[in-house]
């Protein structure tokens, strides 16, 4: 029962540390850790250690884990993945947060 909270604590602590580091790639790693921590919190709210798989035919439904948090986690994973890809693209385009010169983005329009 204590494995889950300790794992969440380690993930969140590591994620927070990486978020405070310079460089967008480190921040991306930090956010990945943080979101894994969040996903485990969600899982913990439905699938506790004493519950079985929420599949029909594998046991009494009253003993099965709650499938709703798993759906939450799935949604959250997809969203984080999409944003991570976008942030890695941003990391490739700019050089740092105070980019002093206009980077070459391949654009040719004026807005």
């Amino acid at each position, binding site marked *: 029962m204590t494995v889950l909270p300790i794992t969440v604590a380690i993930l969140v602590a590591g994620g927070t540390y990486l978020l405070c580091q310079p460089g967008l790639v480190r921040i991306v790693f930090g956010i990945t850790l*943080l979101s894994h921590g969040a996903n485990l919190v969600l899982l*913990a709210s439905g699938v506790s250690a004493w519950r079985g798989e929420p599949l029909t035919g594998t046991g009494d439904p009253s003993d099965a884990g709650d499938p709703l948090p798993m759906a*939450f986690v799935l949604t*959250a994973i997809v969203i984080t993945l999409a944003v991570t890809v976008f*942030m890695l693209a*941003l990391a490739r385009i700019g050089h740092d947060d105070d980019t002093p010169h206009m980077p070459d983005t391949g654009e040719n329009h004026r807005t």
Partner: protein
Amino acid sequence: MTGTFLPLLIVVPLVGAALGVLVPAAVARVLLVLSPVLTTAGGVALLVTHSDTPVLAHNVGAFVPGIAIPLVSDTLTAVMITVTGLTTTACIAFARITGEDRLRFFPALVLMLSAGVNGALLTGDMFNLFVFIEVMLLPSYALIAMTGTWRRLGVGRLFVVVNLVTSTILLIGIGLVYGVAGSVNLAILTEMDADDPRFQLAVAVVLLALVVKAGVVPMHGWLPRAYPATSASVMALFSALHTKVAIYAVFRIVQTVLDGAERWTTPLLVLFAVTMLVGAYGSLGERMIRRNLAWQMIAGVGYILLGVGIGTQLGLAAGLFYMVHHILVMGSLLLASGAIERAYRTHQFVGLSGLMSREPLLAVIMALGMMSLIGFPPSSGLFGKVGIARAAADLDGFRIWLVLGAVLLASVGTLLAMSRLWANVFWGPPFDEMPSRGSGRAEPPTVAEDTRVRARTLLPAGILLLTSLAIFVVPGPLWELCLQAADGLLDVGPYVEAVTGS
């Protein structure tokens, strides 16, 4: 109108977004104009419906209440959908007039953004609130990355990181709520014991994430840095939608789930008063028009949330009234600033001077907008502040002085900030007598003798401003709607009944 129409408000813009990628650009630009007009019309239809039916609810796919995806609309939702729809229409009209909507994916992204906004306003479930806020944010990341100055590339990172970390906190909060209550459906959560400390903590984590997204001091730093780096139309869109959706969710969750926040009145009032003051005086350090206005947005967030802090029917209605006023006026000022940028290629104070004699129409629009922001007549701002002052008068003891003093001091700050903007941009010598234009780092843009702001680029700003002036002349109907919405927040009976069907 019945509840079965509610999903259309989300589906129509979402299908429009998908089509916007597939069809030729010219068709996509028509879809882009059509969708917010339909949203506004839907909002008005909802307002009419709510004059006799207090709440409409629909469980998508007719699943059992509690498992289904609930969409709920009451007066508060309808007011928000109408006002955000109207402002979105104005922003898109501006983007169309300036040609910004020619960017290939601009129509699709804005349509997806408005689908997310409508969804977040309609949903009756915390997890779907998170999903719709993400649907709203993902296109915003792309919009920040593709419009505005090159500064956006650095600022885009800030915006993405802040919002993603905040969303993670929101998700953790929702997980905790589910763990404590076994549901994230707002109607079912009303039955929870609001004094259970575990439940309070879980909801507090959700609210923490929402106030960061709203830009409450001391978590406001990202807003005045990120927003001004985008183009004016996108900033006006964000100012009307993003922070306001978060504020809407705070109103909804505090009132329905926590039954108000009476025990926390004093700390909340102090927090929001500080937000107003920091926002109002923060403008004084800025040297660009839209950066100036971005700080005033933070002040506006403070005013609106004072309504939740006060928590009475009058307080909630006053906060809501202020929100409507603030969305309209801020949109008008930002779009007017966009018109300046369109003609003069800069919104820096150092590059602008003497616009009052050069651009009389622009000067009138900006002057009235600024007076509205400060709270002078003839504008909706006067009644916005009167409403908050009136609601504060029902508090007891020092809290009255806290709120009234903060409103007064913040208004003085806004007045100073706006007169500084006015003196720098609208007064001063004409362009050919200016000592130097530009910041010194780049070549100053040259202004031809006959450069003028085109009248049609001022049209969207003018329409939003006229709405604000109309609210000054006839404040009654909107105030009635706000009172009705506040009633809906205080008495959650009809809301629960409509969602659970019992």
